Every structure is written in C-alpha cells, then in structure tokens.
C-alpha cells in the first residue's frame, strides 16, 4: 500500500487545473464527428521530437537544467513518481514510502525490475546511487540530499534513509534528479564513473546515441516493468533556434516540438495542419529584488512596485493569455497555492504612489535592473517599464546574457533588480528555499526577514498534509506581504505537434514521459 504524504487533496481537481489550460487549434478545431471516431492507441513508429536545448549530460546527477528531463525521463525512472497535473506523489520504483519517525524515511522497492544492462534493480543499487549523489565530485544534487545522514539497505528491496533533521520535502526530491536511478554496474564500468554519455536506467526507452547538440536517439525497452511503450523509439532532435524548431514540424520533418514560447504558438495557430497546446506550468516570471540595501530595503517601495503591475495585461500581452495573470509563484489550482492570496496585488496606482510618497519618493524613483537580451525579454522589460512608470517607478535597464545578469546582480551585487523566469521545482518549500533563504544563491540580499525562518522550518518539519498546506499558504502570504519579489505571471508549457501524435503530457514541471505517447499510422 502506498503511503502518500499529500494524499488526495480535495480542492485540487483536474477540472480546475485544466481551467487554465488553453488548447489552440487541435481538438477545438476538429469536427465533432472526428472526435467521436477518435483513433485508438497503437504500437509502432518512431517519434521525431524536437527540443531547443542540448542537455548538459544524460547522467541525472551531473545535468543541471529543467529541459534535460525531456531526454532523461525517456531512459530513467525515479524512485517516486508524480501525477503530471497535480504533482501528487505516486509510486514508481518505490512502491511505497513512509516516515517511520521524523528523521527516518523507509522506501519499499519494486521487485522484478532490471536496468537496461540486464543488472537487477534492488536495495543495493539504490544505496549505491544515493551515496553517489552525495559523494561524486561532479554531482549537482549534493545539496538536494544534504539532509541525508546515512542510507542503508534494510532488506533486499527496502532502503532506509536516516536524516540529520526532519524534512518533509525529501519524497518530492526523490522524484527529481537525485531519485532517477542509474545502473551501478554502468557507473563502475565507466572511466572515472562518468556516465554523462552512457546513460543506463530502468526507463521505458534505451539509449542508442547522442550527437552533441544535434540528436538523442532511444529505442523501446521491451523488458520495461510498467506498461510497455507504444513507440518503437524516439529521435529527439536538438534545434536551438525556436522559429527554426517550429519550421521542422511545419515542413513535416518532425512530429512534435517542445518548450516553445507564446510567440511560436501564435505562428503555429495560423497553420491548420498543426496542433498547438499550452498547459499550466510551475515556471513563472518574476524579478528578484535586493531587499538588503538601497531603496528596495523599504518594504513600501517593494509593495508600490507590486501594486503598480497589471498582471492580467502582462499575461495577455507577453504570453498571449496562456499563463496565469496573478502574483502567486504557483499556477492556480496547485495544492500549495492559496487562491485567497494569489491576487494579493492588483493594479492600484494610487496606492502605489502613496506608498512611494510615504517612503520619501514623492517624485518617483529609479530602479537599476538587469534583464536578458533576447527579443522576448526585451519586450517583457518594455511592457513592465511602461506599467511601473505610471506609478513613477522608472527602470534603468541593462540587458545581458542570462549568466551575465546573474553575475552582475547576484555575485557582484550591482543594481536592485533582476527580471527572470524561475520555478519548476517539485516541492513548494524547496521553491521558497532556493529563492528567499539566506543561503540561496538567488537571494541577492543574503538575509532572511523576521518570520521567514519559522515558516520555512515549519514547511520542512510538517508531515501532515493539511497542516503542511496551511503552512505553505502562510508562507505565500508572508512573501507577498513583504513583497520579497516582483511576480508578474505564471507561464505555460507549450508544445506544437501534428494531429497524429497522441497521449503527450507535459506535466506541471514541463517534464514529459513518452511511454504513453502513440502515433497514428
């Protein structure tokens, strides 16, 4: 029996999530007759997919960015899975998990599973993997498992994790990179344990080849422990330029394109032969603020900026209305999102101006900010600047490449603000931790405001689902009341495909699994 920390959360319905879903083209355009005679799933065919980002590595431990999961989840299963729409935890390689006490997590593992290299999946393999997460010098997930003091096999198919302190986020972390189990035999056989380019997991597809920044090819794992994949294989092409990526599906050179933006969606909608879909996403657009010094140290200035934004308009203009025009870090309907505060800030120019005046900036204020240099980012900063200017908040913008902006703002402590998309973490407490904790790289101020730590600790130490939700709702209110950042709108996971592709689900985290995908002949 599965022990699920979140359980069934009553106020999250698929309907409410799908309410935010926009399907352009596709089903809406199909005649009713065609829908009535919907084709049935069939096996066979190789899916020609396209994504715009080359993975850093196909070893889950050494990779780093969210789009890597497009490829990783083809080949790897996680210890714990999640529902694509709600992120509710589900069994995967672990059939159940339970905190036997606040600092002991026990995982019961699935039996009869084999890695692609024919070696067995068992407790020994999990212990080896989790220890590698913490000890391999190239591991990027060390901090994810920093809470783990000791991992041991307490049975052939049972693993116990002893923790340094209580941490309710750990099961969700095991859905992420640290939980994607790599074959120990493949690691031992690789020079220096480097399996960046020789991924061996238990997933529905087996690795064939990776031509850097060009193609990742996988074939069906006929011995897959779960429902067998419909597809014979997936050819994942990497095309960095978004418009070029869309042209591949327009020209019939690919079947599906992932990780597109609203601009490409608008183009695809004009082509009746294509289906363009947008689904709710945990990625959202915001601006990190340095609230440790300068004018943004005054909460009234930060609040004034938040009152000056018309978020529904931002969503409409910058994301074609596909995202969510509110100030929450999470999409509407997500269990940790409190609907009562998701619209905490609405456009109120008078309030913004009076707050500025009270803070001593009756004649307005200038805020030095960084933004990315691409066309969409420049457009974002232009719209944002225009809205803030209405309240007398003038942005002095420096556009640069993403890594440069991070260095200027977070390392060199220049400016007061950085406009950027962020999010996409499986557990909401982690999302707060990586942005607002004093140790978070993204917290330019490197301080925590009074009250933050108590809420953060509570979100980690609370295991009861209902209580944890309450704590996280309080955290959402705390972040908004203190205006710790400048949230603008939540984004959407956008794909463009031919109508022949069925069963694709991008998930809230924009991490697709392909074994349910099938193609018409």
């Amino acid at each position: 029996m599965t022990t699920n920390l979140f359980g069934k959360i009553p106020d999250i319905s698929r309907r409410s999530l799908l309410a935010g879903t926009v399907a352009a083209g596709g089903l809406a355009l199909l005649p009713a007759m065609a829908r009535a005679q919907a084709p049935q799933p069939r096996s066979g065919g190789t899916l020609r997919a396209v994504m715009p980002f080359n993975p850093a590595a196909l070893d889950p431990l050494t990779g780093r960015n969210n789009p890597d999961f497009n490829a990783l989840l083809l080949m790897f299963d996680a210890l714990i899975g999640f529902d694509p729409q709600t992120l509710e935890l589900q069994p995967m390689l672990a059939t159940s998990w339970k905190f036997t006490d606040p600092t002991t997590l026990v995982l019961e593992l699935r039996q009869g599973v084999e890695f692609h290299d024919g070696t067995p999946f068992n407790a020994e393999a999990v212990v080896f993997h989790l220890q590698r997460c913490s000890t391999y010098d190239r591991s990027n997930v060390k901090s994810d498992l920093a809470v783990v003091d000791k991992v041991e096999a307490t049975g052939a198919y049972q693993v116990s994790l002893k923790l340094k302190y209580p941490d309710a986020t750990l099961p969700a972390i095991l859905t992420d990179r640290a939980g994607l189990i790599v074959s120990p035999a493949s690691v031992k056989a690789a020079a220096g344990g480097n399996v960046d380019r020789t991924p061996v997991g238990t997933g529905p597809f087996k690795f064939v080849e990776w031509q850097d920044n060009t193609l990742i090819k996988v074939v069906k794992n006929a011995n897959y422990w779960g429902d067998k994949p419909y597809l014979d294989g997936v050819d994942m092409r990497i095309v960095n330029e978004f418009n070029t990526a869309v042209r591949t599906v327009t020209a019939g050179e690919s079947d599906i394109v992932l990780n597109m933006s609203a601009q490409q969606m608008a183009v695809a909608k004009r082509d009746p032969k294509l289906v363009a879909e947008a689904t709710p996403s945990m990625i959202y657009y915001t601006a990190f603020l340095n609230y440790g010094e300068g004018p943004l140290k005054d909460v009234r200035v930060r609040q004034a900026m938040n009152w000056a934004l018309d978020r529904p308009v931002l969503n409409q203009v910058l994301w074609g209305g596909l995202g969510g025009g509110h100030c929450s870090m999470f999409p509407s309907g997500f269990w940790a999102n409190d609907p009562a505060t998701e619209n905490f800030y609405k456009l109120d120019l008078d309030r913004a101006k009076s707050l500025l005046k009270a803070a001593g900036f009756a004649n307005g204020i200038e805020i030095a900010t960084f933004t990315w240099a691409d066309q969409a980012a420049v457009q974002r900063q232009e719209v944002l600047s225009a809205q803030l200017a209405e309240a007398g908040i003038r942005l002095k913008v420096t556009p640069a490449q993403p890594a440069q902006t991070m260095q200027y703002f977070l390392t060199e402590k220049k400016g007061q603000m950085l406009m950027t998309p962020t999010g996409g973490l499986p557990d909401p407490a982690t999302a707060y931790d990586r942005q607002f904790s004093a140790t978070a790289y993204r917290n330019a101020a490197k301080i925590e405001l009074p009250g933050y730590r108590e809420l953060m600790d509570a979100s980690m130490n609370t295991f009861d689902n209902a209580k944890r939700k309450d704590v996280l709702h309080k955290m959402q209110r705390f972040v908004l009341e203190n205006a710790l950042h400048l949230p603008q709108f939540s984004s959407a996971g956008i794909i463009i495909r031919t109508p022949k592709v069925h069963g694709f689900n991008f998930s809230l985290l924009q991490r697709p699994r392909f074994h349910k995908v099938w193609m018409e002949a």
Partner: protein
Amino acid sequence: MIVATFVVFSLVYMMPGDPAMMIAGDYATAERIAEIRQIYGFDRPMLVQYFFWLGNAVQGDLGHSLFSNESVLRLILSRLPHTVLLVLYALVLGAALGIPLGILAATRQGTTLDKIITSVASLGVAVPNFWLGIILVTLFSLGYRWFPATGAVSVFEKPLESLYYATLPAVALSTGVVAVLARQVRSALLEVLGSQYIRTLRAKGLGSGAILWKHGLRNVAATMLTIAGLQVNRLFSSAVIIEAVFAIPGVGNLISYSALNKDFPVVQGVALVLVLVVILTNLLVDVLNATFDPRVAAST
C-alpha cells in the same frame, strides 16, 4: 596564432558571466558554485588558466566542454565538415555567378545590363543572409517542398544528399560572394581593359575575345583569387547565423552556443581552428597567385 588564442581567451574570460554557475545549473546553491569554481580551476588567475590550456593544446589536447563534458577536438571534428561543405558550396555558387556577371558588366559598361548588374550587386551585399535564408525556406521548403527546411547529412556518408541538404543555406550564404565578386571583377577588368598595353593590343588588331580571355581575365585572376580568399573568411563568420536558421550542426552553431554558455574550452578550440583556416586560405591564395601570375612568383 598564439596571439590570436590569447586574445580569444582573454575576451571570453572578460565576458561577464560565471561558468561555474552555468555548470551548477538553474537551482544551484552558492556552496556548490564555489565548489565547482575550485574543481575546474576558475578561481585561479587568468594567465594560469590560459597557460594550462595552451600547454595541453600544444600536445593536441583541446580539453573538454565545460557544458557537455565532450572532447573539444571530437566536437569540432564532427562539426567542421558541415561548415566546410557549406562554405565551399557557397563559394562555388558565388563564383559561378559573380565572375560571369562581373565580366558581363565590364564588357558592357554603361549599358542597361551593366546598371542592372551593379544595382543587383549592391542589393546582394545589403541583404542579410539570415533573412534571405528564411525567405528561401518559406518558399522552397514550406511552400514547394523542393528542399529540406532544416538539418544536414554527412558529406562522407551520403555526398549527394549532403549537397541537397546544403543547397538552400549555401544559396542564402552565397549572395554576398556573388555581389562582391561581380563588383570587384567588373572594376578590375575595366581597369585592365583601359590600360595601355591592351590599347596596344587592340591597335595591333587583336580581337576583343582574345583580348578579354587571353589577357584581360588573366590579369584580373589575382584580384579574383584575393577576393575569393577574403570571402572564405567572411563565409565562415556568416555561417554562424545561417547554421542557426537551418539547424545545421556545424562549427558556427557550436561556437555561438558555447559562447552563450561561457564554455571557453570550446570557444578557444573553434577559434584556433578558424585561425588555422584563415592562415591556410591566405597561403593557398598566395600559391595560386604565384601560379597564375609569373610576376608574383618572380618577386617571391
């Protein structure tokens, strides 16, 4: 070459952006970033990092990509054929059209045809390659479906198919070559045809055809070769955008992607190869010049 590598290394080093942060990923902690900085030696002075790289490079080791951990040499060798094919194809197309147009314009100086050619040549220089590329794809790939919209095929495995795939990008890339060659050939030929010894040849009764083919073109050959050599260098840089438009996995795509990620071993490696290409191209132009023009051979 050492100067060139040092300049490139310095420029990449001075670019703002922290490679450790790129390696650590979107959600890294400050602690992990500091750890990476130490592991990869980013905390050492620039000169130390440069000489470490140079020491390995002279032994044939260009290092590994910071981003994908792939061997830089292998990355470059797998991509260079696509770019070389594209550049040579564009050069051949450009020469095949540009030189005859230049000759036509020169031999019909002042006529409507001359004016049309010089105007079109000016347009050819002004039109951005990537814009033309998009127009060509829209017309001949998405519209008529005559050519593939994206991708490339290995020239060693499928030579004819690789040419088919490279046609549209090569056409888009070649317009500048056509324009520059047409204009330069025209003006060089006009100068030659107006020179004293040609007038003497005419006075002696030599036919126009013989004057043009036997004496005129031989004298502008050096100009054509020099321009073509310069165009090779320009085409390599223009290929960066064209490769992005057509999703060609060449070195242009590699260097732009790597520069964005501050992956300086790859940027350094590609820069080194491009410097070599420039040197070899100039050498080849000098040799061919000497072959065509005995005066050059005599002076060297």
